[in-house]
């Protein structure tokens, strides 16, 4: 049903910082006012918690990656639509080895990472690239805020994590980036997703989100004093400074032009990516619980093609709102 009050959750990560900035600087307010709605933006320090909250229905929209969108809300029966493709990781996620720059040396080591996260996925893809599998090493679940500290202990010799931890770790002696998300470009995608039913009933909400994002993204990438100030603010909000934040941005392919984003979601590469992702999730037992194939949850792409069970579509990519932005029709 239609409603006017919406709640959006976001968590601290390079590509999502604009949401917090937009909330703090009146951009959210401005776009909400334009569509006669209210949008409450909540910051989470804990990414997983923000997804869980969205999944149980406490929020209408949330920032997450394509993989987590599939494994948590979609798998949990919450039909979810990716309103905005904000960026993909192009180096923000990395496999780091101590005292070796050869990925193949990872065999036999303990690898510290957040299990079942995009790091795990990155590791799986990295192992594929050198003909290894997860059986050749041992995964140790480690919480993301503690990665930097953990890397400094002698018994940690291999790690998969994301920024800002990656850039911190790479400054440490002996740390080598042996594989990162720029080696699998476009596979780790950062999204703003919303509940499909809410969105269908309230298209204005989607439009407002698109308006907020592209206005803020433009500011973020602007080579002006304002842009610098915005980057400094986002850096501070994520616990670092402008330089640190800009360093993280360089490893991010940010879609500040809606047209680029539209091109990205409509390209067939996305289907290949999602197939990789759902196979990975199925292997780990996170998708299609108890089922025999990853097809249990259907994924819809712009244009209407569905991968998997067409009777149970729960994860959708759409270009509707980004196209409106590209056409200047917001």
């Amino acid at each position, binding site marked *: 049903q239609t409603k006017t009050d919406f709640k959006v959750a976001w968590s601290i990560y390079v590509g999502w910082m604009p949401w917090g900035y937009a909330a703090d600087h009146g951009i959210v307010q401005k776009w909400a006012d334009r569509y006669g709605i209210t949008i409450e933006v909540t910051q*989470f*320090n*804990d990414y997983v918690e923000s997804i*869980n909250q969205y999944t149980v229905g*406490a929020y209408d929209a949330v920032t997450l990656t394509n993989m987590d969108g599939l494994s948590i809300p979609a798998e949990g029966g919450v039909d979810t639509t990716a309103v905005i493709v904000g960026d993909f990781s192009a180096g923000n996620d990395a496999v780091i080895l101590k005292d070796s720059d050869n990925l193949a040396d990872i065999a036999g080591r303990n690898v510290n990472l957040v299990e079942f996260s995009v790091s795990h996925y990155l590791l799986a893809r990295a192992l594929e690239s050198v003909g290894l599998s997860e059986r050749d090493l041992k995964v140790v679940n480690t919480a*993301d805020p503690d990665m930097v500290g953990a890397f400094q202990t002698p018994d940690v010799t291999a790690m998969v994590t994301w920024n800002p931890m990656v850039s911190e770790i790479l400054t440490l002696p002996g740390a080598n980036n042996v594989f990162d998300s720029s080696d699998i470009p476009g596979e780790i995608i950062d999204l703003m997703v919303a509940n499909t039913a809410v969105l269908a009933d309230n298209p204005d909400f989607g439009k407002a989100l698109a308006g907020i994002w592209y206005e803020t993204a433009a500011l973020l990438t602007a080579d002006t004093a304002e842009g610098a100030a915005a980057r400094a603010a986002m850096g501070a909000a994520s616990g670092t400074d402008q330089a640190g934040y800009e360093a993280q941005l360089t490893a991010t392919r940010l879609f500040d032009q809606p047209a680029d984003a539209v091109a990205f979601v409509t390209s067939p590469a996305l289907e290949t990516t999602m197939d990789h992702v759902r196979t990975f999730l199925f292997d780990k037992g996170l998708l299609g619980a108890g089922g025999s194939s990853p097809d249990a949850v259907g994924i819809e792409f712009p244009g209407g093609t569905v991968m998997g069970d067409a009777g149970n579509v729960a994860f959708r990519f759409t270009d509707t709102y980004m196209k409106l932005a590209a056409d200047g029709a917001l």
Partner: protein
Amino acid sequence: MRLVNVRPDRTVRLMLGLLPFVLLVMAYVIGSAARLAENPNDKLLPALSTLAQTINTLAFVPDARTGNYILWTDTLASLTRLAWGLGISTASALVIGLVTGILPVARAALAPVVTFVSMVPPLALLPILFIVLGLGEVSKIALIVIGVTPIMARDLALAAAALPREQIVKAETLSASSWLIAYRVVLPQILPRLIDSLRLQLGPAFLFLIAAEAISADAGLGYRIFLVRRYLAMDVIFPYVAWITLLSVLIDIGLSTLRRRLFPWSEMAR
């Protein structure tokens, strides 16, 4: 003279008490110097000068983004939550403890469930709490309440039940009703224990607060620690930990003074 009878005088006591702190600081300084000599960018044990500079920034330089003084904003946010959480816990623990302590019927109905709930690890309930109560202040306060109340309630029930039965009988011979026994005989006598119990729960309360703030907040001592943990910014974490410790010690001393002031008789009865 036996060692048990050797009583150092005031000055010696003071010096002995300071000694471990001095040793700790020295160990830190040496460790820090050693690590910095090896890697000048080391973040684990920042030099004292770095610490001082960070503290200065946190406490006395307004934040560029919001114009707030970060340390004070965080402190205010956390202490407000703590006060609410402990306030609610104390009040409910008092009621539950009093009732289960003196009414056999209430004890039969509530004691098992309170014991059971006091054993539930509250951190594991955190996700559920957030879902049920939302992410605002309520769920953070609720975590403190859930973590602290059952233990305080059990403690108070024990204190109430430990009052000599003779006192209750005495009150009855003085024509007290059940209500008056609770209100005039038992309640005043467990209030000092309430304060002590509160003091003991200060540590756990801070723990729950930090855990809750780590998940969702935009200000607070725990929020800040977890925010900067990704960068291993020990120059922020150490001062924050020290500050939390200092706050706890101060509140503890304050409560214990309050207790002595309000209930002079409870000191004598020792």
